[in-house]
């Protein structure tokens, strides 16, 4: 390995990074000299030994732990973009810790690591269940991770919102701070890392066999399943220990093994040695830069956000260099069992059902005296508040369902759903920027800010689309990278913990309660225009999944049609997420339900999904209004309650 390293110019990059990190750390230490102050107490000594040095140690150890975790995850899942943040392990740990903070604070005091580990393992178990059927195929695993982590994020946001300002610790923790005031965290991470390193090297040889292929590994008598599960568990333990101790530090687990490969690490063992080393230096350097940038200002600068700034571009760089496994073609849930030949009547039934849901949502509500059926003057009084939000919810549901249908048909991936395009997260960044720039922005300004954020992400997506030929999956992953990047920025913005953070949280968790007529009309108008244009795209949607050869033979401008379809889905998602937030599970579920009902042909599939989406979202909105009246729950909560279990059932059923 040493030879391999010295022959490459990238070695110099590594040496430079180490030198810089050392220099920055030395600078921190020199700042504290002389150690004995004039006032008769040696504060500088205490700062050096209890703050500066443990911080450097934690950066190194946490970086190494994340690097090892990423390397293990990538090897076991044979997935070059797996890491604790793309798989949602960190979000799962966050949800578990938020829940514990609220309902069992004593648990957080005594055993935060166990809580975090439980959350992380839960997410991984869910991912395995979701993607097992497809042989843990990389794109599906990461898409499922994205969906799971979004659900976890929305649930955490709901819990924090419902409990007011005193959840500041969770906001701090969500943006990853390396601040230290003793050696506790260092010890905890060091113990985990040491045990995991030993285990990883014991597993290295059998793991190398696993990477041959399943058949030959089995013939060698290696118990594949348990081996992989064990390695996975170690990776999760490493990641959740870091998250429990210092918070969410994204993308180091992704970057370290990648750099290791770029530096020339070839075999399993090389990577297992190089990744922790590189991760350590990377986090140490990032943290040094963060502290330098913070300079005189005392405010805490979240290191987790800085690593995300590194990770977004890295993912984008990686995408064109990935080689994807060929997947088995049968992927969408089969519609053939019960194909509808005469679709008019079923479609009208769906339309009626959606309309009835909307009507019931308008009429049924709760008041100070319990349930009430609004009619006459009461309905008149309540309509200005109910009607806009219900119409907006229905329109948003319809748009998300359409976007989901387009994406699922185009990519042939059943887990593709609108949020993977990253545009909704872009809306969050726009919103955050606006909240921090203006002192009291109105609803119109907020819409403008969010739209600007969406536009930036769209341009980025378009730039990827220009460079890629015939690989819609890479586009999806590009969107995913943009989304993860934007989410990290939003997380960092929330660290202020003031009213602005709470407005951001409200958006993340999804809320239609703030919608008035103006916003409702805007969303409705956009929905009408975009959905009205859909019939023009159905031919492309019918032909593209057949494969590029087929498409070309039929005279389809391949790249142009893919780009336009993606843009279309992005536009639909953006308009919807401006009002209902980034959680768009309806866009995942509705197309499936339509297919299961037997709507196989593109046009019918689209129409049925749209109607189902509108109905589902209206129902979710109604629940969010009713369940804890007068306190309103976030829409995202119910969207995930509908979507989450469905997702699990869907993938289980296929087995």
């Amino acid at each position, binding site marked *: 390995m040493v030879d391999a390293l010295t022959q490459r110019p990238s070695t110099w990059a590594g040496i430079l990074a180490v030198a810089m990190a050392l220099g920055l750390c030395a600078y921190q230490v020199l700042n504290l000299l002389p150690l004995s102050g004039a*006032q008769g107490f040696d504060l500088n000594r205490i700062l050096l030994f209890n703050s500066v040095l443990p911080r450097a140690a934690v950066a190194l150890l946490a970086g190494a732990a994340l690097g090892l975790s990423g390397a293990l995850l990538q090897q076991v899942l044979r997935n070059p973009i797996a890491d604790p943040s793309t798989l949602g392990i960190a979000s799962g740990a966050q949800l578990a810790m938020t829940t514990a903070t609220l309902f069992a604070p004593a648990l957080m005091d005594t055993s935060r690591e166990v809580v975090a580990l439980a959350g992380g393992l839960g997410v991984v178990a869910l991912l395995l269940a979701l993607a097992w059927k497809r042989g843990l195929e990389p794109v599906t695993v990461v898409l499922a991770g994205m969906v799971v982590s979004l659900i976890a994020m929305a649930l955490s946001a709901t819990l924090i919102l419902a409990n007011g300002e005193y959840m500041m610790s969770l906001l701090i923790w969500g943006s990853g701070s390396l601040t230290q*005031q003793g050696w506790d965290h260092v010890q905890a991470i060091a113990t985990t890392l040491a045990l995991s390193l030993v285990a990883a090297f014991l597993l290295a040889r059998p793991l190398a066999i696993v990477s041959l292929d399943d058949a030959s590994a089995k013939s060698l008598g290696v118990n594949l399943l348990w081996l992989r599960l064990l390695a996975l568990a170690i990776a999760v333990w490493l990641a959740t220990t870091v998250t429990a101790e210092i918070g969410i530090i994204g993308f180091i687990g992704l970057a370290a093994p990648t750099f290791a490969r770029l530096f020339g690490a070839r075999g399993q063992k090389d990577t297992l040695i190089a990744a922790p080393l590189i991760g350590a230096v990377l986090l140490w350097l990032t943290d040094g830069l963060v502290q330098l940038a913070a300079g005189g200002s005392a405010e805490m600068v979240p290191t987790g956000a800085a690593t995300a700034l590194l990770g977004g571009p890295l993912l984008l760089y990686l995408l064109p260099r990935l080689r994807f496994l060929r997947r088995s073609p049968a992927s969408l849930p089969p519609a053939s069992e019960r194909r509808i030949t005469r679709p008019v009547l079923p479609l009208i039934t769906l339309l009626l059902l959606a309309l009835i849901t909307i009507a019931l949502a308008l009429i049924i509500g709760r008041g100070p005296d319990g349930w009430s059926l609004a009619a006459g003057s009461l309905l008149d009084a309540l309509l200005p508040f109910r009607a806009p939000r219900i119409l907006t919810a229905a329109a948003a549901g319809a748009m998300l369902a359409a976007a989901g249908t387009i994406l699922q048909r185009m990519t042939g991936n059943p887990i593709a759903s609108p949020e993977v395009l990253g545009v909704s997260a872009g809306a969050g960044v726009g919103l955050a920027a606006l909240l921090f720039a203006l002192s009291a922005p109105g609803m119109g300004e907020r819409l403008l800010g969010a739209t600007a954020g969406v536009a930036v992400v769209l341009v980025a997506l378009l730039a990827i689309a220009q460079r890629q030929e015939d690989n819609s999956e890479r586009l999806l992953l590009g969107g995913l990278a943009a989304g993860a990047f934007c989410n990290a920025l939003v997380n960092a913005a929330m660290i202020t913990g*003031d009213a602005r953070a709470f407005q951001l*949280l*409200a958006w993340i968790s999804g809320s239609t309660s703030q919608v008035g007529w103006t916003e409702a009309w805007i969303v409705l108008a956009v929905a009408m225009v975009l959905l009205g244009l859909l019939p023009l795209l159905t031919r492309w949607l019918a032909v593209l999944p057949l494969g590029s050869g087929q498409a070309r033979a039929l005279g389809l401008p391949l790249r142009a049609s893919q780009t336009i379809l993606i843009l279309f889905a992005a536009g639909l998602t953006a308009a919807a997420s401006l009002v209902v937030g980034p959680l768009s599970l309806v866009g995942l579920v509705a197309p499936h339900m339509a297919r299961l009902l037997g709507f196989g042909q593109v046009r019918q599939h689209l129409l049925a999904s749209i109607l189902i989406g509108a109905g589902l979202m209206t129902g979710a909105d109604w629940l969010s209004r009713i369940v804890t009246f007068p*306190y309103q729950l976030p829409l995202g909560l119910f969207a995930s309650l509908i979507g989450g279990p469905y997702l699990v059932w869907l993938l289980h059923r296929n087995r």
Partner: protein
Amino acid sequence: MTRRSLLGAGLSLTFIGKAQADRYDRVAVVDWAMFETLLALNVVPVAATELVQFRKISIEPSVPPQVADLGLRGSPNFEMLQLANPDLIVSSPWFAWARGNLERIASVASYTIYEPGRPPYAAAEEVTKALGERLGRAEPASAYVDASLTEIETARRTLSERNARPVYLINLGDARHFRAFGADSMFGDVLTRLGFTNAWSKPTSYAAAAPVPLEALAEVPEASIAIVSPIPSDAQSTLAQSPLWRALPSVREGRVSVIAPVNPFGALPAARRFARLLTEAFSGNGKPIHG
């Protein structure tokens, strides 16, 4: 409905500074600072936001049971507000985004206490008087303003021998970070009015600085520390064992006190409660925290 919303829109165009003493029977309120001001003026609102948290964090003035709960401040329940049938809604710029919906229900009076960089106490006095005038309670309002001044003056005299050291006013985020209340916070303003120097001299935005690592507390070694509750449960035990925390001069020398929860974005009632709690803490009756 349409007639009223039209009327409401017309009224709200001319809300502040108009010294007509309308009689409002049914006042609703969405902002907490305005809520406690109303209660202080003996105006019982028909509805207010997030009463569950208000009772936990603001504690006083106590909320009469007939006040209807409007749900979270982040998403006030407009339907509930409509059903409460108010004739005036008292609001603040935090609710600028909801203005359209609020005006649909009744006329809206919006007042500003908190602005970045401006000590809020004087603004709270102004708002109290303005609200009093608007609700036909000008006299109780100016009496309350005077009483508050007197209470703070009394507290200042009580503390006159104990205010030599600067004070850090903080709120613990977790075991590693705190939020500092600066000059543009109500706590910071009252602290100065009590004759203390605020040890946090750096700029803050919206009253408190974003989370700051604990070691920043070492910058003014001679300062005392006042922690405003609540303290996160895991921070409490972690802090007690933290070498850095225990090494801080103020902790080592026992100059840390914890005071009960006060609404950090309150008006005069919160200012008075804070002044009283701080006086108790600094005159030796407060609960000491040991490092």
